[in-house]
């Protein structure tokens, strides 16, 4: 054909075939979608590993059509509020907790993620079958290790920051932990136990934590120790953040006043000699 070698005549057909395939078709999952799922979805969902905070996504395509799923990923709350019975069921399974809006989501990414879920569902064991946290009974040593990790007395192996920088917890000494993030006293019960909390800790999806822990993840022993500590302190009542803020503010004011007195004493001779003359002339 046109004097071209046979192999080259096949090439345009192959390229045409590639062009014809659109993003919604079953392309092999891209590295981008795998990384995205790992960072943003795996902390609440497994594929074939059972429910965490969110439902198991194995066989998702059989539950709802692609159009609805894309719409859901683009705006989870609006889609659930639209009154669809399946949406209502999802909401009641999640005890009324909506899936949070997903960072950087668009139609193309949604399709890529759904392709990935379909491909992983077809496998006997998906690489997202869930964070495997040990089932062994939690010991006092685990709790003590968890406490040391939380407070920063024991550094995290990969160099991630200690929890206390941003989170407080009941039972912490002094004025408690940081107030940038939520109080973690109820985290164990909020996330419904070891498995889901472990998955959350193994790849935290929060926008503040993500840049900090993506390259410095917690290892499985650290996750277990923190789960043990959060379980041990769960339900002992949340700290009253306002009262600790007040104590902190008063301590700051007291120290500032003390420093002013110190200045006055240190410079008690400040108005002698030339300065006294200047003051008198004013």
């Amino acid at each position, binding site marked *: 054909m046109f004097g071209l070698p046979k192999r080259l005549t096949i090439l345009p057909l192959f390229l045409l075939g590639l062009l014809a395939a659109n993003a919604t078709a079953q392309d092999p999952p891209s590295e981008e979608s795998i990384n995205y799922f790992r960072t943003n979805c795996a902390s609440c969902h497994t594929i074939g590993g059972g429910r965490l905070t969110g439902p198991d996504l194995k066989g998702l395509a059989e539950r709802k059509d692609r159009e609805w799923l894309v719409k859901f990923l683009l705006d989870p709350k609006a889609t659930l509020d639209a009154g669809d019975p399946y949406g209502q069921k999802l909401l009641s399974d999640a005890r009324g907790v909506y899936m949070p809006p997903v960072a950087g989501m668009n139609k193309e990414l949604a399709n890529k993620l759904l392709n990935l879920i379909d491909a992983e569902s077809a496998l006997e064991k998906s690489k997202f079958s869930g964070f495997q946290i040990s089932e062994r009974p939690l010991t006092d040593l685990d709790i003590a290790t968890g406490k040391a990790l939380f407070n920063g007395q024991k550094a995290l192996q990969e160099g991630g*920051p200690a929890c206390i*920088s941003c989170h407080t917890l009941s039972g912490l*000494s*002094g004025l408690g932990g940081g*107030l940038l993030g939520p109080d973690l006293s109820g985290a164990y019960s909020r996330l419904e136990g070891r498995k889901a909390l472990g998955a959350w800790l193994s790849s935290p999806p929060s926008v503040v934590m993500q*840049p900090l822990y993506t390259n410095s993840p917690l290892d499985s022993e650290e996750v277990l120790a923190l789960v043990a500590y959060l379980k041990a302190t769960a339900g002992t009542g949340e700290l009253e953040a306002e009262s600790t*803020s007040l104590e902190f503010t008063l301590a700051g004011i007291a120290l500032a006043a003390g420093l002013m007195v110190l200045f006055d004493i240190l410079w008690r001779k400040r108005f002698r000699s030339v300065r006294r003359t200047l003051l008198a002339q004013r």
Partner: protein
Amino acid sequence: MTNYFWFGVFPYISLVVFFLATIRRYRTESFSYSSLSSQFLENEQHFWASVPFHYGILTVLGGHILAFLCPQMILGWNAVAARLIALEVTGLAVAILTLVGLINIVIRRLRFPKARRVTTAGDWFIYGGLLVQVVTGIGISINHGWGSSWFATSLTPWLWTLVKFNPDVSYITPMPLMVKAHIINAFLIILVFPFTRLVHILVVPNPYLWRKTQVVIWNWDRNRIRKSN
């Protein structure tokens, strides 16, 4: 997009203006490099304005620079709860000193006609900017503690991405509004720095700290001079 402008672009605009305008002012108006002290015009309240303000702001600035340069050292220090609280309370106390000094500066310049006379529009602008900076700083310290730790974990990495000309605003995007306002205002102050009295920071006579003591004495008969007037 807005975040990218304020935390990925604006800092560079601010720093470029800072360097170019600072150098230009030094080359063309080197004698204007001064805070133009008004101490001679009013010396009593001046003490309660200048001293707490300067000791306060120098300590606060030092803390910020330390967290930028040695974040691991700060986190190591904060690993013991008592040390963390000592650092945070000290930080808040010096911020309150700064605020007290700044309020006294403003009151003094309004109250004493001579001091008011020499206060320029630029001075008022910088007092306003500093007031916003100190108030938001104190607000963050109280409402979003423990800043010494999360500055080291979340803001230091962002600042280093700026240094490496590859700004990553994802560290800042989720930060509370007050933190964002504090950062934007900081770069605004850096932007106007070369046009204000703040340039005196660059010409602090540091050798005074280690040079030999000089005793200044009156070498004339004061009574005689006064009588001749």
